[in-house]
């Protein structure tokens, strides 16, 4: 009886330790995070609001059709809208920033995804495997750009996340993403991120000669976005947070995970020790 008990405790401690240590192995295995790779450069000064990027995205990704959007009421990102425009009225005309996933180098969504559905592709973008998604929605709540979208069944909690995939299958075949291919004016440029940064810096230097308020966005934000922007104004005007970050709560969660796992292992080890000491002393007490 006593041996069984002891075996039970030992076995339990071993199994729990193993379960609690799995995250380390996973965390070490997951990363092909890179600030290099492929990227897109969006230039608001070249956009003519034609919505072809929007239409091409819908067509290529087989998302349900909608009517041609109105700049006064642009569609929000949703499970069926992976890219849209963020229009701003300037001197009686609309200037639009294309809005979609920014494919961060340091992505909050990847950090918080519990199932590994979201991960880094070695070509630089943030990919996801639909079959692995649990629908928890952490990605949507922790993304500083409010990009991942989902519709959740209120009763069952079942939901599947959707967002821009960077047209990863096209990119893998050496093609451009559908939106970049469809762009009529060169407002969406696709290429090597390092080359696009050089181009962005040249372009912004030129723009600043006549417009000192012009800015470039995405070179350093989130350790480097894989969708960067040339803006004729400050980022906030175009709905981009000035100083985006992986929310500090993400780090706090990681600390809690390690703390919890460590304390659980310590507790189980403590019980084992307590059991042996208590039994020994109780026996001695009886004698």
């Amino acid at each position, binding site marked *: 009886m006593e041996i069984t008990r002891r075996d039970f405790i030992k076995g339990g401690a071993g199994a729990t330790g193993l379960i609690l240590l799995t995250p380390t192995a996973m965390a070490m295995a997951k990363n092909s995070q890179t600030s290099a790779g492929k990227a897109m450069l969006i230039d608001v000064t070249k956009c003519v609001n034609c919505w072809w990027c929007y239409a091409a995205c819908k067509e290529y990704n087989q998302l349900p059709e909608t009517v041609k959007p109105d700049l006064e009421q642009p569609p929000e990102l949703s499970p069926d809208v992976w890219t849209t425009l963020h229009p701003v009225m300037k001197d009686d005309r609309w200037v639009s920033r294309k809005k979609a996933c920014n494919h961060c180098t340091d992505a909050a969504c990847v950090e918080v995804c519990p199932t590994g559905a979201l991960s880094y592709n070695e070509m630089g973008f943030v990919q996801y495997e639909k079959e692995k998604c649990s629908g928890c929605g952490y990605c949507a709540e922790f993304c500083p750009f409010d990009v991942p979208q989902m519709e959740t069944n209120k009763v069952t909690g*079942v939901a599947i996340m959707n967002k821009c995939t960077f047209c990863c299958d096209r990119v893998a075949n050496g093609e451009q993403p559908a939106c970049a291919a469809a762009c009529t004016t060169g407002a969406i440029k696709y290429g090597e991120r390092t080359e696009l940064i050089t181009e962005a810096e040249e372009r912004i230097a030129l723009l600043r000669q006549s417009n000192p308020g012009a800015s470039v966005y995405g070179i350093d934000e989130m350790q480097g976005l894989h969708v960067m922007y040339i803006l004729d104004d400050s980022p906030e005007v175009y709905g981009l947070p000035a100083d985006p970050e992986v929310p500090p709560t993400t780090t706090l969660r990681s600390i809690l995970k390690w*703390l919890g796992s460590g304390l659980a292992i310590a507790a189980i080890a403590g019980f084992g020790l307590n059991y042996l000491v208590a039994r020994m002393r109780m026996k001695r007490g009886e004698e």
Partner: protein
Amino acid sequence: MAEPRVVERFRKRTIWFHWIHTAAFLVLLVTGAILFLPGLGAPAAGGITRSLHRIAAVVFIAAPVLYTIINPKMSWRFVKETFTWGKDDIKWLQAAPDYYFGGGESRMIPQGHVNTGQKMWEFITLFTGILFVVTGLLMWFLKDTLSPGVFQWMVIVHDFAFILAFLMLLVHIYTGSLHPRMKESLRSMWDGKVSRGYARSHYSKWYDEISKGSG
């Protein structure tokens, strides 16, 4: 008339409640842990575990509500017992390390129906239960309404409650069923009874009360 050799410690309905709540909590624990610990996320794919988590949550909330409606007096006694602390509880805490490491039984402070450690566990179940239910319901029903910042904190508080409840559950399981000194504790949550000797040595103040009561 010969005294029965055992005394009743828990009533049937309390035992039922205990195990139904345990089952619900274990389902919540497993389906929650796989979302908390990244390496274990695979079974969550497709959202089945999230549905299970919700079903178990309904039981986890409904069971204590029903129990309270059916047994208002006993429920009130439970709450009162949890929050009634005296000098003996401090003494118990001081004596506990030696006692749990197999020191002499006689040096332990006399205890009522539950000992100080059990009171602390009762408090943890109430405290984390409220944290779980409040943050859980908010995340369930107000996901679209809450700002991301508030939602993130709901997740953190839920995580915190999980760690606290899980650790204390380990302590509860260990002291309640495996510790060499607590031989009859698990049984008492099964058939509701403990031997007179066990009652006298573990809960002497309570034993004196019930012995007096039965004449």
